[in-house]
């Protein structure tokens, strides 16, 4: 009998130190029954992808308030792919203009949540998406 839990890595890439959102979301995801690995601040894309691989997470959540989102989301995805974790669900938020969000989503880099999103909505999205993926996996 499988006892699978959704495993999530929450990280702050780049140099910005605003971790209020990241810590709040990490705590909310825990309250939704997920196992949340929090890696803290000032992470490089390589460190994030390496941790995601070693922790075998299903989801990586990034919070970026530094304006470097167009640089960081693609680089994190690239590093994940390099480590065979291209199938990870990448989600993110922060201070990101709407049209940049569109670009990143359309480019397949990440699913983004804008300012003012209910954290419960983020958790529900992850649960629904991972539920779908777990169901599709070969037994």
């Amino acid at each position, binding site marked *: *009998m*499988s*006892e*699978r*839990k959704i*495993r999530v890595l929450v990280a702050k890439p780049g140099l910005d130190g605003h971790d209020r959102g990241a810590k709040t979301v*990490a*705590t909310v*995801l*825990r*309250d*939704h*029954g*997920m*196992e*949340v*690995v*929090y*890696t*803290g601040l000032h992470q490089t894309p*390589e*460190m994030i992808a*390496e*941790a995601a*691989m*070693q*922790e*075998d997470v299903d989801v990586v959540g990034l919070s970026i308030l530094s304006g470097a989102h167009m640089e960081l989301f693609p680089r994190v995805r690239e590093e994940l792919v390099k*480590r*065979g*974790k*291209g*199938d990870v*669900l990448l989600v993110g938020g922060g201070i990101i203009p709407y049209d940049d*969000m*569109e670009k990143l*989503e*359309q480019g*397949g880099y*990440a*699913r983004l949540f804008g300012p003012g999103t209910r954290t419960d909505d983020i958790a529900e999205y992850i649960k629904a*998406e991972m539920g779908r*993926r777990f169901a*599709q*996996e*070969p*037994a």
Partner: protein
Amino acid sequence: MRDGSAARYNARTVEGTSKSPQPSLSERFARGDKGALARAISWAENNDPRFPALFAELWPKVGRARRIGVTGPPGAGKSTLVNELARATRAQGRTVGILAVDPSSPFTGGALLGDRIRMEERTADSGVYIRSMASRKSHGGLSRAAVDACDAIDAFGIDDVVLETVGVGQAEYDVVSAADTVLVVLCPGAGDGIQAMKAGILEVADVLVVNKAELPGADRLVVDLSEAAHIRTAGRGRWTPPVVAASAGRGEGIEDVLAAIEAHRAHLGDAGLAAARREKRVAQVRRVFDERLSELLWDRGGWTGRARGLLDGGASTYDVVARLVAGMAAQLQEQASGATPGRGSTT
């Protein structure tokens, strides 16, 4: 809410859409792919039906690593100590695997696993593997999964496995006791020595580390612990846990901790270590056995429903158990004489 773009995004990243032949997990594991090690541990954790077959392939390679358990109350500085131990053993050219266990919330089943934050410098080191594990619901299951994870790290060819748990309870001791040498980490103030002794730390400790030795009260704690350890073991031909003062945050005393670990291993000797490991393996067999038995008989036999029925019929707890055990024995005989249970067919 930008549904269109989200759907496009999802379509590109759905798992399992590629049909190209991929190397099996055990092939990737044998090639030294850390992602395969990570996945193997997930299988162990999830009680995945594919794990036993994979484990059979790993088994011949299990038993080479030195296993160190680290436990102690929250705030004692365990992660920092583990980080420093890893730094020191890496400097000796040894590879390190760290398994950090944190409690799951009993209410939501979720967990916050934050130990990596103190081991950030190690993330970039290819000779280090770090894995966070949530305690989930049962402590027996946790110990089983933790030992499986240690076995997997060991089979991967890593030299040192460090198993870290937070807490002072029986569940945590049960987990770390799977290690060859158990370090109990205390610090002045937060991990009050007397309280810790009441909780039975001396039973499990092979080495006592007084961390944050720069704080006031550290000397006193070292003396108290040494006396207690001595009184408990002196003249009985038993190992007396040495008390080592360290200041992991400043990188001080780490060599002393490593020396104490080596002293403990020397005390055990090869034969003693092998005997201790065999007993620990028996304990692990027992854990797996309990899980299998419970799964085979209780879960698959639908015994929850039967218990309900018997209780509704007025039977006492012990009456119910007696009837269930008799029924299980019959079911076991039936299974032994015929059909193999074939795990994994029902997930």
